[in-house]
Every structure is written in C-alpha cells, then in structure tokens.
C-alpha cells in the first residue's frame, strides 16, 4: 500500500513542472529593441519579434514589429505584452537602437532600464539609428535568413569585418557613461535603399551626442580604439598616390606634463602594410619615400581626429583615465585633467614598414 502511494505520488509529480517553465515555442523572441522619442509620450518603443519557422532559408525571414508609446520603457513594454499571444523573451535581444532624437538629451536616463531589467543580456550591441530606430528595424535585408540577423552579423565579428563599423556593447556603453575620463560612443546606422549603411560613429559626452565622425575619421577612430588592423589608408603626398593596406598596427601613448611648457600627448605608432592600388610606385624604387609618404598621411589624419575630439572635450579613447591612473593627486586629478585636455597638444609619430608593393614581378 505504501509502495503504491509512492508510485502514485511520483506519477502525479511528473505531470507538473517548475514555475519558470515556459516552452521556447510559447515565447516570442525579441531580437532587437528600438527606442525613439515619442510623439505624445516620452518614449516610443519598437520591438522586432522573430516568427519562427521550421525551415530557415535566406530571404525568408519572418518578423513582426510592434510598437507602443509610454512614459517609461517598462510601461511601453507592459502594454506591448498585451498585444501578443506569447511571452516576450528579451533574453535574445541582440541589439538596442536608440533614435537620434532621443540621443540628444539625457542619454544616461534612458539606459537605466536596460541595465536593471533582468533577462536583458549586457553583451547586446547598442547603436544610434538615423533618422529613427523604427526605420532601422523596419528594414529586413534580402539576404537575411533570420530577422535582424544582418545587424547581428555586422556588429559581431563573425560576419563582415568592415573597418568602418565600430562595435559597442551595452555593458561597455554603460561603463563609459559612469567612468570619468572615458566617454561613450555609438555606431550610427542609416538606411540606404534596402541595405544598412553603417560607417559613422557618434561620440557622446556623458549626456548627449556631441560629434558625428565622418567615415574616414570613423575608420581612424576604430583603428585607435580597437587596435585593429586590416583597413586601408589613402596616401596622397606629391608625387605619390597609393593605398596602404594596413596588416599590423601597434601604438602606445603617454601624457607628458612638463613643469615648464605646455602638456602634450606623445603617440607612437608602428604600422606594417602593403601598398595597394597604385600606378606610381614600383618594386625596385626606394621604399623609404613610399613609407615616408604613408607616415605623413597617417600622422595628419590621426592628429586631425584627436584635435577634433579635444575641441569638443570628448575623450572616447580614455586619455583622461590614463592621466588619472598615472598621477597621484586624488580628486584633484580630474579637475587638472579638465583644464589640461582643451589645450593638450598632440605629437603623433608613425613608423610605417612596407612589407611589399603588392606587385607580382
């Protein structure tokens, strides 16, 4: 009798499940979250939901866009929950797009929800959508086998490794919002025809967008930020004109504050590369000239970028953090740095080694 009871209890037990139990097909996977400035209320939240299909094939991606306005992101999501028949699962949200209008003020307030909300993985990407996040999410590329896949592939380094695309993660963005001496940035996504155009970066101070880098500056910025090679530089120094394909890049910098004289930042960079696309340079010519041209060209563009940023008091490369880390003045360091940065001079020294001219002789 006792044994029978145990068996009966066991049979009852295997018919129930735990409380977090929700099958994957009863969940709506959110792949991207877009947040825009609302027309009436504060936010307009757009979610891109994947509609799962048994067979996944290119160009067949199915998705559903839902959006709602609310005074807070969580309120909008709460309303969206009532519009769909399955549980919203934010765990797979891979990218958050902030509308340009929203990025103009109080960015740190908007990010609070993303950090606090459970279920959102902090390794998701953040980006700025031009003109609005909703426009970006509405586009589905032809090659996509999964809604939102092309955005994920663009930012993760699995698919394209474009030198124009800077990647920013949610956790890093949030860290930069809080960190003194290291400012946040975001890649900018625009829609051109039926594809995305991602070749700009938006630099923030702690509150709003201050500077939009053009594609050329973005490329240099990415090289400096990620120390990533594999990009091309157009070298244009009379009489030489060629493209240098950078294979290897290393740099280090230090901030020097001499007691007599102006503070300056010394940046030494070593570049190895191959000359590409040129009619003027030949294998048996002296390579010194060619290298020199590239050095000058690189130095100029780096200096330009750094000066642009310092003019706006923007510091996404973390110079301020480095300054404070190498001084011992407590709270005063930060005040010092704020006065030093606008007048900081940049001394850039690039050493280019040409590994080949790209010709086959």
């Amino acid at each position, binding site marked *: 009798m006792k044994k029978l009871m145990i068996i009966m209890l066991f049979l009852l037990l295997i018919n129930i*499940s735990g409380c977090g139990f929700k099958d994957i097909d009863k969940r709506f996977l959110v792949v991207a979250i877009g947040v825009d400035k609302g027309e009436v209320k504060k936010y307009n939240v757009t979610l891109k939901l994947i509609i799962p299909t*048994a067979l996944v094939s290119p160009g067949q991606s199915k998705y559903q866009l839902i959006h709602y306005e609310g005074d807070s992101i969580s309120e909008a999501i709460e309303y969206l929950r009532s519009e769909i028949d399955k549980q919203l699962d934010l*765990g*797979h949200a891979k990218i958050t797009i902030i509308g340009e209008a929203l990025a103009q003020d109080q960015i740190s307030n908007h990010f609070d929800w993303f950090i606090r909300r459970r279920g959102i993985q902090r390794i998701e990407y953040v980006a700025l959508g031009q003109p609005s996040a909703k426009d970006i999410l509405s586009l589905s590329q032809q090659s996509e086998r999964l809604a939102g896949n092309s955005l994920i592939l663009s930012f993760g380094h699995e698919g394209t490794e474009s030198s124009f695309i800077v990647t920013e993660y949610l956790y890093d963005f949030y860290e930069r919002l809080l960190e003194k001496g290291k400012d946040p940035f975001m890649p900018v996504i625009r829609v051109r025809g039926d594809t995305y155009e991602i070749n700009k970066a938006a630099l923030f101070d702690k509150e709003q967008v201050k500077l939009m880098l053009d594609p050329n500056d973005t490329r240099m910025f990415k090289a400096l930020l990620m120390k990533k090679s594999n990009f091309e530089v157009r070298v244009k120094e009379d009489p030489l004109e060629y493209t240098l394909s950078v294979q290897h890049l290393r740099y280090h910098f230090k901030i020097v504050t001499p007691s007599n004289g102006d503070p300056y930042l010394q940046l030494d960079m070593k570049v190895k590369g191959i000359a590409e696309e040129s009619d003027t340079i030949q294998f048996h010519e002296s390579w010194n000239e060619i290298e020199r041209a590239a050095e000058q060209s690189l130095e100029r563009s780096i200096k330009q970028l750094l000066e642009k940023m310092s003019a706006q008091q923007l510091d996404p490369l973390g110079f301020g953090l480095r300054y404070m880390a190498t001084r011992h003045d407590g709270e005063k360091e930060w005040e010092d740095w704020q006065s030093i940065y606008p007048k900081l001079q940049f001394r850039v020294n690039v050493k280019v080694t040409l590994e080949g001219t790209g010709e086959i002789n």
Partner: protein
Amino acid sequence: MITIGELSRTVKKAMDSSDFKTARLQHKHEELLVYYYESLCDLKVLRERISAPLVKRSEEQTFTEVLQSELGCEEVHDVSEVVEKLLRGCIVIYVKDHVFVLQALKVLTDQVREATVEASIEGPHYCLTENLHMNLNLIRQRYPSKDLTAKEKVLGRISNTKLILLYHEGLVQAEVLAHIEQQLSRIDVDLIQSHGQLEALMTKKKYRLFPLMLNTERPDRIALNLAQGKVVILLDGIPSALIAPAVFYDFISAVDDTTQSFFVSHSIVLLRYMALLITITLPALYIAIVSYNPEIFRVQLAVSIAGSRASVPYPSFVEVFIMMFIIETLIEASIRLPKYIGQAATTVGGLILGQAAQQAGLVSSIMIIVTSMVAIVNFVIPINAMSYAMRVVKYPFILLSMFFGITGIIVALFCFSMYLANMESFGQPYFKLFVGEKSATGYKHKETS
C-alpha cells in the same frame, strides 16, 4: 569396510532417476558393482579404465590393487560421501567391501570462444568459458606466477556451485581479501547462478545503483587486475569473472587502452568521460534550455528549435519522456530478440518511428537528435553494467531539470558526484583518482616516489 547393504541403502533414492545406472561386471572370480549417472559421466572412461583392466588383469594381482594404482581414483571410507561424488560425475565402484570413486565427468562447456561483450581490436580475442577449470587454465597461462593462489569454495545449498577466489599472494591487500571472504561465508541461498546475484548477495546495501565489482570476460583484463592486487572471483558455469575491489575508473576503461599510443589512448579515455557526461545530462539540458533558458543558444539556433517545436502541443518534458520511452524499449527489445527479427525491430523503431513521430508533430526534430545522441553515446561506456546504470541515472536529472531548469541540473550533478564519492567497494574508495599509483603495465601511470 563398507558392506553392499550400506551402499545400496545410500544410493536407493537415486535409483528412481532414469539416468542412474547400476552395472555388474564379472570376470573370472572378480565381481564388481558400478554405479553412475549416465548423463554426467563419460562412458569411455568406464570402458577404458575399468572394463579393460578387469579383463587384462594378470592372475596374481587383485582388482583392488589395480584401482589403487589408477590416477583420479580414490577409496572412500565414509558411505555418506558417495552420493555427492556421484552427483559430481564420479563412477562409484564396489569391489570386495571396498568402495572406490573414479572421476569421469563429461565436460562439454570448455570450448574457448571469441569475446563478444568486450570485443577488442588489437588485444587477444578469446574469452573465458563456462568451465571453471578451463578458465583457471586460461588465467594461469597468462599469469604464470607461483604466488597466484586459488581457493575453492562451494556456494548454494542446492546448486553447490563451485567458486574460486584468485589472488596474487603478496600483492593483494589482506583486509580486502578478508572482507571478501567474510562476505562470501555469509551467503546463504539455495541457488547461485550469476555474478550479478553474487554481487548483490555480497554487498550489504539493498538499494544500489552502480556496480561495485567489475564483471569481465577477458583473461588479459583479469591478469592485469591480479597484478594490481585485486581479487578475482570465478564461478562455475559462468563465462566471466568478478573483480573486486573496483573503482569508477575501471568501468570507463577498456583493455584496448594499453594497445594505443599515449595521446590516442588518453584522448579516447577523455572521449568516454565526455560521452558519460552527455548521456546523463543531455535530455535534462534539452528541457532546461528549451523551457527555462533559451538564451543559452545562439539566436539562430533558438529560432530553428522554436520553429521545429511549433507543432508540438505538449511541454518539452512530455516530449522527452515519449522519446526516452521509445528508445529504452527499443534497446531492451533488441537485446532479447533473435538476430533475424532484431534488425526488423531496429528499422521499424529507429527509422520509421523517429521520422513519423517528428512529422506527426509529436516530438521536435531536435529531440530526435537528442534521443539518438543519448543512445549512441551510452554505448561508448565499455562495461555493460555501468552503461546500464548510466541509463537510469539520467532520469533524476530529467526530473530535476523539469522543476528547476539549469539549476536543477547543477544540483543533480552535485548530488551525483557526492553519491559516487560516498561509495566504497570492499572498504576501498570507489570514486578515486589515480595519482602516484603503482602501475602494473608501466603504461598508464608512472610510479612517483
């Protein structure tokens, strides 16, 4: 001195059996009575060693003297021993108030055959037989050491099964041997017929999941274990041996491990441990990931799983139970079925049922992969007893993952290793690591000082 009256009274009961024979042999003045079981004895022995000498015997020699000089023939002074000898395949000879027994057992089970359960590619191919003496012969050939000691015991009130304890005197740990002998002496049953039964009788714990003794059919494995100081138990009529004490590692190792080069054999052992982990956790992981934490997958995979599960109306654990039931019954059925029908069963079960179940929307296609993975990976475990045990272990995992998701699996893994670590095999730790262990083959572990 045993009189004819005493003897015939003793064997009276046996007379009822139709295969019990009595014969009266007479030549000149000699007359002898012969008793034997026709089914047990080899009549050739009777003919060559009794009838022939009786006729050829010279005048001055009595037949008693002839028998005394026979090998394997002895005189019995106590009449009560006679029946037992008869049942062991002896011929009982009564001559002039003397009783002799002659060993004449007909042995049909000493054919050496190839190993089937623990087949090996490069190692020796022959395995133990169902005959105790033949087995001892095979082992002694592989282990010609004067220290190899065999102790015979008899178990079972009816079966009187012969059992041999084998060990290397000097290498064996005395307390282990004493422990085993003590457990053996405690056994009190009518019939003993298998190693599993013997193992169960020797262990005190009633509710036990894992095998505590290694069951092997390979003489080379036995030799290796003897050299490691283990005790080997041979049972008459069973083509395998029990090795004690055993540790968890023994059940995951195959004899082939020593035939390969270092990296090959070590990576194969590693592969087996991974297989072990997969076979016990995979169904549970399926439930936990599909129903609790789908964010563990890449989004691309999550979507295709969601798509394939879309037609399944039941929660994931019902799906798992359905498929596990199918695969377990399939394995169970194919073991018992004759070879000819066995193939049909696997085709019907594996191909048709699996395909159809998915198309009918009963299970998802990912679940089909999980099911077959679990089944295949389970067969990687070399020792059968352990592979059976692991088939059972996965169910507690499934149950816990149903209620608590990934956390449940981690708790289950924790409890599983605790349980293993708590186990002992004849006083020796079961879940033990081999660091600095003496190596008999000079292969797996170097001796560290």
